[in-house]
């Protein structure tokens, strides 16, 4: 018995093993030394470089590229880690086309930026063997960090470096947050997320406690009492509902759960996927779910977004990637009802248009066959821990202070900034600096 792309229903093993490894290999294979030199040579070493400004962690990009060009990629890695300890992961997952590379002067000049992300990966890969930092002398201060995602890890590392003792609590059985459970597989291959966490923690002074959830056995009162400071970096645990008829039917799933299952799978050929897959949403999660469903062998995958293409949160690069993998992108359509007897068989959409009063349905509808539907319409903060909110997130100052003394927050759970890995790293780092100054200021 073997399944194919045409096998009806939700089944595993639609492809041969070669196709799985091809489909889920590195999206951008690493540059070799020669490619890196050639790419680095294109950098103009701009003064007050726009790329640096565009990087949420403000990496000194011209300097690290010059260090590559002069044959010292290890020094380049240090320039990166100085600002961004998760520079390795960011090199893989940052939407550089909307950050540093978008403003590269060579993008302006020739429509072809210096490949900053790939160069950053080249440099950081050279320094992932031994941990490069030593801890400062112990300060005797203890800080609790909730969440071992990019925000929590970056905060914990900076604090440990400055000599504080850190305990990280994470609800999941594995550290890394969305680096481990969310990022598309072809962006972080060979278990990079876990290796990076191990490398980061090897600075010492960070005690990682897994399977410990705030709100379930742990509470903020006790943490605040037991520690000198608390940092919350628990991301967005909730998911938004579609709010349409039939949403509860079988096989209407959260995209993040699908992705997380995929990321944790050790054998992709055992992972079932539908023949007709529909993804609802317009962000990075939607694209990742759609592309990976296609790469798992779904016969057709449609990504349906309620507004126009220009409003999609996924960058043009991501959209093109989806299209190149065979995902059909449908815009201006909103889900009306999920049809099926117990499990989904079809999903019905209404066309929409932008009007002066906002988005309006046109009255026309259409149906797509679907044996699997993934919802990717945004995540929400779970429990706000009684802190003041801004919008639907924990309100924080520029340095990450919450409304409660001694409690800082950063990353996706906190207000301000885009929901990106690199933003989470920046916010974790900046909060750590502020915590340090506060604790040492007396």
């Amino acid at each position, binding site marked *: 018995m073997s399944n194919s792309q045409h096998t009806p229903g939700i089944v595993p093993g639609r492809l041969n093993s070669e196709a799985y490894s091809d489909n889920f290999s590195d999206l951008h294979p690493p540059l070799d*030394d*020669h490619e890196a*030199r050639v790419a680095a*040579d*294109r950098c103009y*070493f701009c*003064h007050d470089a726009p790329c640096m400004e565009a990087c949420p962690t403000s990496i000194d990009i*011209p*300097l690290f590229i*010059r*260090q590559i060009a*002069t*044959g*010292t990629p*290890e*020094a380049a890695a*240090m*320039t990166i880690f*100085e600002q961004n300890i998760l520079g390795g992961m960011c090199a893989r997952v940052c939407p550089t086309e909307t950050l540093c590379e978008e403003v590269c002067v060579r993008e302006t000049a020739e429509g072809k930026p210096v490949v900053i992300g790939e160069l950053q990966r080249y440099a950081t890969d050279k320094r992932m063997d031994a941990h*490069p930092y030593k801890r400062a002398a112990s300060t005797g201060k203890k800080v609790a960090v909730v969440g071992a995602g990019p925000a929590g890890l970056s905060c914990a590392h900076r604090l440990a470096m400055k000599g504080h003792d850190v305990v990280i609590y994470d609800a999941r059985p594995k550290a890394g947050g969305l680096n481990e459970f969310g990022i598309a597989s072809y962006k972080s291959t060979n278990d990079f997320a876990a290796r990076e966490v191990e490398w980061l923690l090897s600075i010492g002074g960070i005690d990682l406690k897994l399977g410990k959830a705030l709100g379930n056995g742990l509470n903020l009162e006790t943490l605040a009492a037991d520690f000198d400071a608390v940092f919350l970096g628990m991301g967005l645990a909730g998911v938004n509902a579609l709010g349409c008829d039939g949403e509860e039917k079988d096989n209407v799933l959260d995209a993040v759960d699908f992705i997380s299952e995929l990321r944790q799978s050790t054998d992709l050929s055992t992972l079932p996927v539908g023949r007709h897959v529909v993804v609802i949403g317009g962000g990075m999660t939607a694209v990742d779910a759609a592309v990976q469903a296609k790469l798992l062998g779904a016969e057709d995958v449609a990504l349906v977004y309620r507004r126009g293409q220009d409003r999609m949160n996924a960058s043009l690069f991501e959209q093109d990637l989806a299209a190149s993998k065979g995902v059909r992108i449908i815009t201006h359509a909103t889900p009306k009802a999920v049809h099926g007897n117990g499990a989904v068989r079809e999903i019905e959409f209404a066309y929409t248009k932008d009007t002066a009063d906002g988005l309006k349905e046109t009255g026309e509808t259409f149906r797509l066959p679907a044996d699997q539907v993934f919802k990717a319409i945004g995540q929400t903060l779970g429990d706000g821990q009684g802190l003041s909110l801004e919008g639907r997130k924990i309100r924080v100052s520029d340095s990450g202070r919450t409304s409660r003394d001694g409690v800082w927050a950063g990353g996706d759970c906190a207000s301000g900034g885009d929901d990106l890995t690199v933003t989470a790293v920046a916010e974790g780092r900046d909060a750590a600096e502020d915590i340090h100054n506060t604790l040492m200021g007396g």
Partner: protein
Amino acid sequence: MKDLYGANLHSTFLGIESPNPFWLASAPPTDKEVNVRRAFEAGWGGVVWKTLGEAGPPVVNVSGPRYGAIFGADRRLLGLNNIELITDRPLEVNLEEIARVKRDYPDRAMIVSLMVPCEEEPWRKILKEVELTGADGVELNFGCPHGMAERGMGSAVGQVPEYIEMVTGWVKKHSNLPCIVKLTPNITNILGPAGAAKAGGADAVSLINTINSITSVNLEEMSPEPMIDGMGTHGGYCGPAVKPIAMNMVAEIARNQETAGLPISAIGGVTTWRDAAEFMALGASNVQVCTAAMTYGFKVVQEMASGLSQWMAEKGYNSTADFVGMATPKVTDWQHLNLDYVTKAEINQDDCIKCGRCFAACEDTSHQAIEMSEDRVFTVKDDECVACNLCVNVCPVEGCITMRELPVGDVDERTGMTIPEDKRTWLQHPNNPSADPNTCIIRGQ
């Protein structure tokens, strides 16, 4: 300064301390307090202040373009030419600024470059004034090749060893400040001026100043550029293009018996940490930089420092003094090279991108020693290859073509010679009419 590798870049030159061996050369980057402060903030170890002249009305610069340039691919600046003179700001202003900056940055080297008429009194006078600033030393500018030379200063002094010795003598007589003599490369043999500086009592030499040059000709106006109202003059050439010339001059001074041991501050095209390491390996104690800073801004020093630090840590050098001069003994005369050392080019087929440049170069201009197959596979013919290295130099892929040394006992297919145990230099070679076959078979001096 970020020193992530823990290597100790600290440098001591003539007893003058600086946190690293990277100084800014006397030039526009060091002409004003604002620049020098910014340079120190960026991490430069020291500066040689832009050359000061006598008190009184300062020199006047042209108000048209003063630079010309040579570019490589992608408009990368390779050579810069200038017709600027010494500082055009009043002496008192410069002296005040020097004193202020030195006071605020006591850990950085502050050297003052000087050029006054070739008479004892003006030198005595300006030295007394410099001493009051708290500066760490003086550099005598005997190099400026344009404008000042026409007034009997700069390279007009530097080209006459007797003048160098005389002026250096005055400086040593009237001041205890460490004295560096900056040499012009616009001479036939650098050893003359270097020896004269030493004889005059110089504590060190620095080199090179700029090289006489015309960088371009405007074919519409039929005038050299930079063009000032339809006319041009030769300028001073500097930047990456002059580094090989400067390195040879540094090496000559370092290895020559009369001048060996005279401390050297190397200048000329230093652009990356590697350039600095190379100059220092040839015998310079530190380096000075002008064009790289003028091209990329003061921040370049951060790459120079991190790169040198990484390299030193990798090599296990604890201080810059550990490797200064390590390559000097390896600089020799052609006649001492081993003529029985045979290598052959080897092309790594996995790295080859099949551009064919090696083939064109060897076939058309060298020894027809590369074969090209129908499907563009390039291979070296060992029986033709003279090991000239041209293919290596024209190959765009670094490390794709390498030179393989033939071990003793192998036969050189080109000459039929078996690689001997003993080495022959030209001095022992049978083709040399004045060779003495019985001379000791040791290479080097």
